[in-house]
């Protein structure tokens, strides 16, 4: 491990270790009932002991999250391109895109089950609903902020609209889109788990069952797995963003 990499990994790891140790000490010192707040050591033990149930559940949740994100990216980008086509379209439809951001997913989740049936489709739909807006909003901002000088250059050379979209506006919007995806990744995990509360399967059902059986250690262990999934997705988008942008965009140049 090089010293720069160490310098990058050490601070968050140290924060984690110190935070967990502190929580353990405080919970022990105050003798808090495990029903109200489990000790980190008990959560860790449950995460290991119940891994045969947690890992397949994590897999199911991850598949639903990826499905939701894939839908959110494709439809989100398409919607942003359509909205950017004219200010009139934007004015007519953008307010309704905002609906996706403010919709209380907990309230509409039972409806998703009625529309899509029990199972993964309802869960994917829930992940999609909460994660599509950041994609639309960020991509649209990118498409609308193209440098006017470059746009004029394309026009001077008689570039067609599709060529301008493909060679100028989408690449220009790419960093914005990737930022949107980073936000969407975390939200999609939340959406999927809420979807599982009503649609069934995955970590969501483990959380509900553990609550019912007063296994707060298992609740937190499942939440830990879900957080791990969110972090992994965040890192994956980060990696994609580095690979896609490092040669030309200021945000990913070597720092």
């Amino acid at each position, binding site marked *: 491990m090089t010293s720069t990499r160490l310098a990058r990994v050490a601070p968050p790891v140290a924060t984690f270790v110190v935070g967990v140790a502190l929580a353990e000490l405080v919970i022990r010192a105050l003798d808090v009932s495990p029903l109200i707040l489990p000790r980190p050591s008990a959560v860790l033990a449950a995460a290991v002991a119940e891994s045969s149930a947690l890992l397949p559940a994590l897999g199911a949740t991850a598949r639903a999250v990826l499905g939701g994100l894939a839908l959110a990216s494709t439809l989100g980008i398409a919607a942003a391109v359509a909205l950017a086509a004219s200010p009139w379209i934007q004015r007519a439809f953008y307010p309704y895109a905002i609906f996706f951001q403010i919709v209380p997913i907990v309230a509409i989740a039972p409806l998703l*089950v009625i529309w899509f049936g*029990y199972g993964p489709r309802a869960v994917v739909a829930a992940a999609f609903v909460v994660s599509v807006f950041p994609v639309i909003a960020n991509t649209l901002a990118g498409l609308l902020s193209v440098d006017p000088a470059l746009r004029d250059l394309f026009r001077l050379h008689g570039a067609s609209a599709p060529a301008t979209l493909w060679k100028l506006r989408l690449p220009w919007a790419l960093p914005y889109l990737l930022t949107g995806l980073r936000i969407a990744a975390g939200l999609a995990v939340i959406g999927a788990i809420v979807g599982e509360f009503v649609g069934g399967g995955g970590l969501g059902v483990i959380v509900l069952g553990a609550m*019912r059986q007063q296994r707060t250690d298992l609740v937190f262990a499942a939440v830990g797995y879900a957080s791990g999934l969110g972090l992994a997705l965040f890192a994956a988008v980060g990696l994609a963003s580095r690979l896609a942008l490092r040669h030309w965009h200021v945000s990913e140049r070597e720092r």
Partner: protein
Amino acid sequence: MRARLLLALTALALAACGGDDANLTLALNWKPEPEFGGIFEAERSGAFARRGLAFERTGGPGAPVVQMVTARQVAFGIASADEVVLARDRGSDVVAVFATYQTSPQGLMTHAARGLDTLEAVLRSPGTLAVEPGLPYVKWLERRYGLGALRVVPYTYSIAPFLTDPTLTQQVFVTAEPIAARRAGADPRVFLVADSGFDPYTAVVITHGERLRRDAATVAALVAALREGWRGYLDDPGPANALMGPLNPEMDAEAMRLAAEAQEPLIGVKDGALGSMRAERWAKLAGQLQELGLVKEPQPADRYFASFE
């Protein structure tokens, strides 16, 4: 005149004895409904007030009542016997003091048109089973009959899926969902889980062990008042239902009346006072929960409940 003065003095004296306990909190685990009829009747008829008790009601659907009592945020709460056994196994000191339902009102409901006559037949016929994840009694049924033929999905407190799916079976409180389904035009058939041998006391009033040790008199007064309230409610649920109606817009007067009627056979006690509990039943329940792997070590039965005969 003199009698009334005496009464006032007694009430004053009792209130003084109660100290800060004169205002107690009682956390319900659902909206006001006939399940809590005796509590509202005790409030209405003055059964609490005559014993110097005043309750502030709190909680509701989804309230973590066992946790609230464990943390002593509330003095009393409503839970079920299996929740008490689980909580004590996890280190909490909650104790049951009054058991409303002597027979558990939990059941499964499916469509009568399917022609299934037993719980076993329902569970062995292909279809969908909508239950809250993690329910101990579902684990019990799974162990007893197997759920392999069924697709198990979460129950979300709506009977809409039941009304549209002719092969759906769902969890119910016999006092609630079957009545709603029938009024919505369905023809449900209900099977009590209790008949399969898993029968925890339900709508149990719980408190913290510390309160029992420090202030058993208040608890005894509460139990006596509840007994009086429930006796009154069983005689005539009308007045308490009228009190609960505005607090629960989802149930109209007819739904309340039908629920009170449906729950009556579950409340009566054969030998003993209303709400009383027996050690054998707690021991049996703890043994069953251990068998299901939900409890590490059953405790002596008398730790789960306190008797006020």
